[in-house]
């Protein structure tokens, strides 16, 4: 149907969708019913959506999450966020060029009083934490309203094609994120006391303890909850560098949304900034979608994400540049290349180490900030308020599932329900799931070279236990109740050992277990590897380059078997015939051609003070820095003079960057005065507050 549609994916199964026509700049294009305008445009290779009214800078997708407003387009004459608005049949979509004309309306619409309702529990956010909390409340028959601004529940779980870490018993470890979302949602929908409003956004928490909610993008409702639970997740941090607002520079979460949720191939070649789990996983997702990953920079000497994720990416042939930073993005109307440089111990780029790479997309994955505005307002206004998941503390989704479950019980208890004692171990588990990766041990290979056994290429302490739960013979153990300790394979003398069932190979979320079988030919044992790419991309008899855990090349070996697994887990098992000397070291095969990862012949120079800090109002680092140098310490004053923070995103994208500029100028944090957080969470038509919204074109739920 289009070059940019992902018709085939090793993990995701494209669902057949009804096709509709819409118009982009007057040209008729085809879209899938139920997809956003942004994905419909990306599906036709359209990545420049609009031009900024201040300086005509090209604008494209940035957060794909309704948080910023860089993806503004005109849909049937009205400005909308392309990432949130669903494309409709015959919709006329146009770029915004200059300030949009406010359409004429001849007759005043009928206005109605705004509906108000009370509810025992309101949960803002239907991701892992919100769903888990709602399930606990639902089990107890407590009337709960769960709202979510997206078109389906699950939050960021629906973007995760990889199997989850964590604890098998507690948080579905070993199951893919998308499948967890479905499981949680299906369970939640069995509880009649929980009402669910999707496509519904909280706009403000007011001082009279009411929460203003835009329901299905049309109707405004004021909800007064007895308890408020904020599980609104996180937003991606932005980064200031020259070229940072070019279309093609966007968040890793935005990328996962377009690629994994909407199955649109957003890019040909991408570069990743940030070696945390989000960046590492995004790289993996890109490869699965057939997108080349040119490289990844991480400012720290080591990637901060799980080593198994890092290793997985390295093994697929993605260069990982640690102690490096992005200097600039380049391109006329969208990204054409990126320049990086090595950092010295004081985090300064080292002259002469600059390298440029051709790419069309730069993913920013430098971390997340909690979406906790509503939690803070709820607290300020004396409401019974809780937060869970990333809105409380940034951590893995597995941690969010668990903290949501605990918070659900705490909410019930706060409302006077007897929930018994919440187990102390639960709080301990919650802490364990939230923990950052622990120490890394050197990899030690088993000395045995007979029979069959797994090699665990798992050397870093992270909360994860599926391998220890899956072994039929109970031969893989964690020598602690703390699931962060490393698993070990232990065959007992005289007892039946490993049967080669391959379950551990399949279940490991880090793809870090191989099986080595010496039984047929001790000189050329068969190595079994998990593979999450297309089965037919690798043929039996072909030579593949095998790599060790870290991604170092070990040599070329022959593929002797490719097998899909019966239970629908979409992992493929590869059988390789490897020389004895390297068999145990093999942890993966190289999938990416090294042509795409080569630097360009020349390096593209950077500029400095023209870096955009406030992307809504196009305020540069130079303008703000000049004020800081003059002694300005009150961000309100900087705002008054420059309009930074006054744009439509509500200072969500620039506040941290302004703080960073202060730091660069040596101003201590305590001297900086922040601007207050004011409603609304996003821009909403005036008519909504007048009660005019009664149409319901795209919504599914009903009040």
């Amino acid at each position, binding site marked *: 149907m289009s070059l940019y549609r992902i018709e085939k994916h090793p993990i995701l199964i494209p669902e057949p969708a009804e096709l509709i026509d819409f118009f982009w700049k007057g040209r008729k294009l085809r879209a899938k019913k139920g997809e956003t305008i942004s994905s419909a445009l990306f599906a036709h290779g359209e990545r420049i959506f609009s031009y900024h009214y201040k300086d005509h800078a090209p604008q494209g997708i940035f957060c794909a999450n309704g948080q910023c407003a860089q993806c503004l387009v005109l849909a049937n004459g009205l400005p909308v966020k392309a990432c949130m608005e669903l494309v409709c049949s015959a919709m006329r979509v146009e770029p915004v060029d*200059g*300030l949009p004309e*406010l*359409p004429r309306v001849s007759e*005043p619409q009928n206005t109605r009083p705004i509906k108000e309702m009370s509810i025992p529990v309101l949960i803002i956010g239907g991701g892992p934490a919100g769903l888990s909390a709602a399930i606990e409340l639902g089990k107890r028959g407590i009337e709960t309203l769960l709202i979510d601004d997206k078109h389906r529940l699950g939050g960021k779980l629906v973007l995760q094609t990889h199997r989850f870490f964590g604890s098998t018993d507690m948080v579905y470890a070993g199951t893919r994120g998308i499948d967890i979302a479905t499981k949680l949602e299906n369970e939640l929908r069995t509880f009649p006391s929980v009402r669910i409003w999707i496509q519904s956004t909280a706009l403000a928490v*007011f001082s009279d303890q009411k929460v203003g909610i835009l329901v299905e993008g049309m109707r405004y409702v004021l909800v007064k909850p007895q308890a408020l639970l904020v599980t609104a997740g996180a937003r991606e941090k932005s980064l200031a560098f020259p070229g940072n607002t070019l279309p093609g520079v966007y968040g890793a979460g935005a990328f996962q949304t377009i690629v994994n949720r909407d199955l649109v191939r957003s890019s040909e070649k991408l570069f990743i900034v940030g070696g945390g789990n989000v960046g590492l996983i995004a790289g993996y997702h890109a490869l699965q979608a057939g997108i080349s990953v040119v490289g990844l920079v991480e400012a720290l000497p080591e990637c901060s994400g799980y080593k198994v994720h890092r290793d997985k990416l390295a093994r697929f042939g993605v260069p990982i540049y640690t102690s490096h930073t992005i200097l600039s993005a380049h391109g006329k109307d969208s990204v054409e290349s990126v320049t990086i440089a090595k950092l010295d111990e004081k985090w300064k780029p080292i002259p002469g180490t600059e390298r440029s790479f051709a790419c069309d997309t730069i993913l920013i994955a430098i971390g997340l900030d909690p979406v906790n505005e509503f939690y803070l307002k709820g607290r300020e206004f004396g409401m019974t308020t809780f937060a869970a998941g990333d809105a409380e503390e940034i951590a893995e989704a597995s941690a969010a599932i668990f903290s949501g479950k605990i918070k659900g019980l705490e909410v019930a208890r706060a409302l006077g329900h007897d929930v018994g004692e919440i187990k102390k171990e639960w709080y301990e588990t919650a802490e364990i799931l939230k923990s950052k990766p622990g120490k890394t041990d050197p990899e030690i290979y088993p000395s045995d070279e007979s029979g069959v056994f797994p090699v665990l290429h798992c050397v870093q302490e992270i909360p994860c236990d599926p391998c220890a739960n899956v072994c039929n013979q109970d031969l893989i153990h964690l020598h602690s109740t703390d699931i962060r300790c490393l698993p070990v394979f232990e065959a007992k003398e005289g007892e039946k050992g490993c049967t080669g069932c391959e379950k551990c190979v399949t279940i490991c979320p880090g793809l870090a277990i191989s099986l080595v079988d010496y039984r047929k030919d001790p000189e050329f044992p068969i190595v079994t590897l998990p593979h999450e790419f297309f089965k037919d991309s690798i043929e039996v008899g072909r030579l593949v380059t095998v790599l060790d855990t870290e991604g170092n090349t070990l040599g070329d070996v022959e593929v002797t078997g490719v097998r899909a697994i019966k239970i629908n887990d979409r992992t493929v098992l590869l059988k390789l015939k490897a020389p004895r000397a390297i068999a145990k070291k093999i942890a993966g095969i190289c999938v990416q051609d090294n042509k795409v990862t080569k630097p360009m012949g020349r390096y593209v120079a950077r500029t400095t003070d023209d870096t955009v800090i406030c992307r809504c109002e196009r305020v540069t680092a130079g303008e703000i820095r000049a004020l800081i140098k003059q002694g300005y310490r009150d961000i309100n004053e900087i705002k008054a003079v420059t309009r930074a923070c006054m744009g439509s995103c509500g200072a969500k994208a620039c506040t941290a960057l302004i703080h960073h500029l202060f730091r660069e100028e040596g101003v201590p944090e305590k001297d900086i005065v922040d601007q207050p957080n*004011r409603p*609304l969470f996003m821009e909403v*038509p*005036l008519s909504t507050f007048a009660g005019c919204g009664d149409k319901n074109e795209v919504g599914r739920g009903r009040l």
Partner: protein
Amino acid sequence: MAASKKSFDVIIIGAGSVGTPTAMFLAQEGIRTLVIDKFPSAGQGSNKHAIGGLRATHSDPAKIRICLRSLEIFDTWKELYGDNIEWQKGGYAFAAYAEPEEQTLKELLVAQKAFGLNSNWLDQKEFLEVIPDLNPDGLIGGTFSPDDGHASPLLSAHAFFTQARRAGAEFHFNETATGLIIESGRARGLKTNQGEYGAEVVINAAGAWAADVAKYAGLEIPVQPDSHEGAVTEPVAHFLDPLVVDIHPTDTSASYYFFQHATGQVIFCITPNPSIWGFDTRETSSFLPMVARRMIQIMPRLTNIRVRRTWRGLYPMTPDGAPLVGWANELKGLLLAVGMCGQGYMIGPGLGEMLAHLIKGDLSAKDRQLLSFLSPYRKFESMEKLK
């Protein structure tokens, strides 16, 4: 202690709508001026909450005189000082959809005309020519004053501040006044949480907090704040020139007003009925539904404009809705410039210039007489008609 304290000619308490331009005019006259403010930068009390409307079309002669001068200051600012404060001479338009409003506006017009104000009654057709997007249904007409307008309170507060400092005024932020220095029955300076400063004149320009400051001199002044909420929309292409006011009261609100700012955003505000007294500036859930219905009714074209942000600010109110300006009878050297009733932004510059003359001693007889209308010791009889 007394010997080491730094001395000025004038100390102003409050770097807001009144204090900042007053400091500028004083400093430009060579008067050594110190401004003390508890907030971290200029205009952070209530000035930044102002929506930016500037008009001389009042009913009180002193306010008319002062605001005419303010308009002149805004109108010539760019020419004189170079910075763009987003001043737009779009006029003020008071719409009448019912007879009581028609009557009120026409009565006011008589007084305003007597003061030489450029304001006229327009019938329905003429009014719609000025504001083509107004709902014609039931519209009788309205008054239109083309010389009024609007500007950016944020940029102008900063502009006054910059010029005040350039002229030599000193500003101390994050510093709270704690008491007056009184010697031989007159004000001799100010005590703050960070030190003491000498001056022969102390100006109370503390806005919503003026009554607390007056207490340092043992004065009770009838200033207490009520609050109004305002909002700003996304920017759209220019479609509206004047600031539109609807004074028709309903059961939950009195007048409301809106205009399109120079940068394209529509800014609006409403007067709740009954008034909400006190210092609470936290967001309420009632504001947007209250104002949205009325705005869409009067201008259907606003249906689709998207609201960006709301805020709530304080109106330091007096019993009759007019400011309290003049020397304190109880304490020599203390000058009151308080109770602007939500109009500090439009009164401040004109008043600041007048106060500079008052302090220098060269205020004209006519202005002296006009200023007496704002005397803190007047009898509070009638209520200002257009708050």
